[in-house]
């Protein structure tokens, strides 16, 4: 049985994954927190916590709010900064079989470029995921992720600054991710990953204030899966027509192998598990085992046979 997938096959910056199951940024820290319990060595790849040039302390409390089958979060990109990540974590990653992709978040095009440059040639860093869609930092994510021109500018700057595989993580808050997906692809992205969280809100009835305290939060979890699936399907159709070399990575409410297979059939070469890691840190491994069981039961030799199987 062949589970290997290649992001951006045929390009210099292609990335080979031993299977299509990845862990999403912000839901597995820097991989060390539950490396053992999550059996990270069995997964296709992990994506680090969103990392900025300088350390960030993050937003005020409360930072999260549980909602029906979902979670609102406004962590505010709390992270120790790129230098600490390179010094503290990359040497450990370099001993792992599982590739680690570093998710980067900048407040200007130049910051994105600088982040990419810092990661160039660092042993243990297998790729870059560009966070143009984090909705929590006013000066950052929203501005870039919701305009095709801005996404193109960031993607081009990162592309010019690195030989690593570049994945651009797209925002769903535009309603239609095809324009930004195409912009990223045309500007040199090897893959696009989608969706990031949807901007949402709850209200604290006693305090009469929005929750999370930041004012809005990114909605994730099973509640967003149908919407994510629709966007992945649309983007996969679009890129197949116009940028067939660019891979699609599906994210959004995946909790099981069935969920993951739906994204794969909708055109995703790989999937990322996010919020479900908080419920069960072993979700990635369970999803992988479920995909294998499905392939055995249906006599499928190569996962590639399933990618895009539901596309028109």
């Amino acid at each position, binding site marked *: 049985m062949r589970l290997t997938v290649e992001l951006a096959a045929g390009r210099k910056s292609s990335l080979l994954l031993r299977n299509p199951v990845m862990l999403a940024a912000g839901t597995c820290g820097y991989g060390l927190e539950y490396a053992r319990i999550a059996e990270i060595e069995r997964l296709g790849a992990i994506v680090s916590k969103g990392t900025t040039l300088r350390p960030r302390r993050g937003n005020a409390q409360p930072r*999260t709010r549980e909602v029906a089958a*979902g*979670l609102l979060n406004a962590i505010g990109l709390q992270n120790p900064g790129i230098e600490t990540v390179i010094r503290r974590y990359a040497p450990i990653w370099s001993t792992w079989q599982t590739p680690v992709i570093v998710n980067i978040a900048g407040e200007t095009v130049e910051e994105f470029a600088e982040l990419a440059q810092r990661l160039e040639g660092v042993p243990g860093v297998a790729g870059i995921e560009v966070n143009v869609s984090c909705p929590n930092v006013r000066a950052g994510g929203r501005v870039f992720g919701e305009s095709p021109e801005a996404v193109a500018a960031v993607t081009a700057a990162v592309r010019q600054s690195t030989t690593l595989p570049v994945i651009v993580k797209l925002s769903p808050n535009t309603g239609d991710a095809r324009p930004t997906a195409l912009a990223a692809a045309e500007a040199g992205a090897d893959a696009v990953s989608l969706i990031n969280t949807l901007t949402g809100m709850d209200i604290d009835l006693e305090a009469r204030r929005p929750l999370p305290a930041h004012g809005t939060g990114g909605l994730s979890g099973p509640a967003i899966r149908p919407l994510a699936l629709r966007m992945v399907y649309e983007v996969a159709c679009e890129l197949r027509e116009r940028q067939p070399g660019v891979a699609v990575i599906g994210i959004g409410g995946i909790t099981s192998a069935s969920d993951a297979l739906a994204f794969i059939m909708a055109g995703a070469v790989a999937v990322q598990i996010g919020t479900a890691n*908080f*419920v*069960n*840190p072993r979700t990635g491994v369970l999803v992988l085992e479920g995909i294998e069981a499905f392939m055995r039961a249906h006599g499928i030799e190569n996962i590639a046979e399933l990618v895009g199987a539901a596309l028109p």
Partner: protein
Amino acid sequence: MRLYRATLAENRMLRQGLHLLELEAPALAQAVRPGQYCMVRCAEEGSFDPLLRRPFFVHSIEGERCRILLQVRGRGTAWLARRSTGEKLDLLGPLGQGWRLPPRLSTLLLVAEGFGVVTLALLAQRASEQGLAVTLVQEVTQLPEGYPAALLPEEVEYHLVTSDGGAGQQRTLLTVLGDYLSWADAVCLGVSRETALQLRRRFERLRRPGFAQVAVLQPLVCGTGTCLACALETSRGPRLICQEGPIFDLQILMQG
């Protein structure tokens, strides 16, 4: 930290909305220290509503069995309270850092506000097993909310303070605690952050280095230090409640 499938050996309702769950969980019983907690799934397998696990302190241990004192507060705890003997529960734990008692201790004061007593129960058991003199002072609004004293080891002295004055004159932790503090070698607080700060301001003794610790409680998301939802500002910089807490030195606690 491990994932467990623990069998529910008993679900005893102590009063409306208060349950004592007894779980067959040998590895957890062996590993857990007072002040550590576990995250429990509170939904059917395959159901994701409610989505997140709920944190519970291990209340007491008997052999290979762990007990959890459960107060029904929302959908998750209500689901858990409805479980029957023989059902499997999905646990992640033990998590966090427990109470860190100083060496050469002979008297231990435990101070609770309402249901915050759950943070202290296993400590009361372990400390009295080790021969310490243990006193628990709990403040509740009304008498029926008091801790079921029968659950405490016999050796533990239990004093109840009712802030609505039902048991005589109105008394609170702020008015009574001074009498106990001079007796204690160390203090462990299972109270709200606001109360902990009030007590620290009121009593000089609570400001002594290494004398008092506090359990900081809030809803948790992951329990493993990955989501960063529970960052707590302390006088020594940010700390994660789920991983570096939930027990903190009272000295480093700051206004929320």
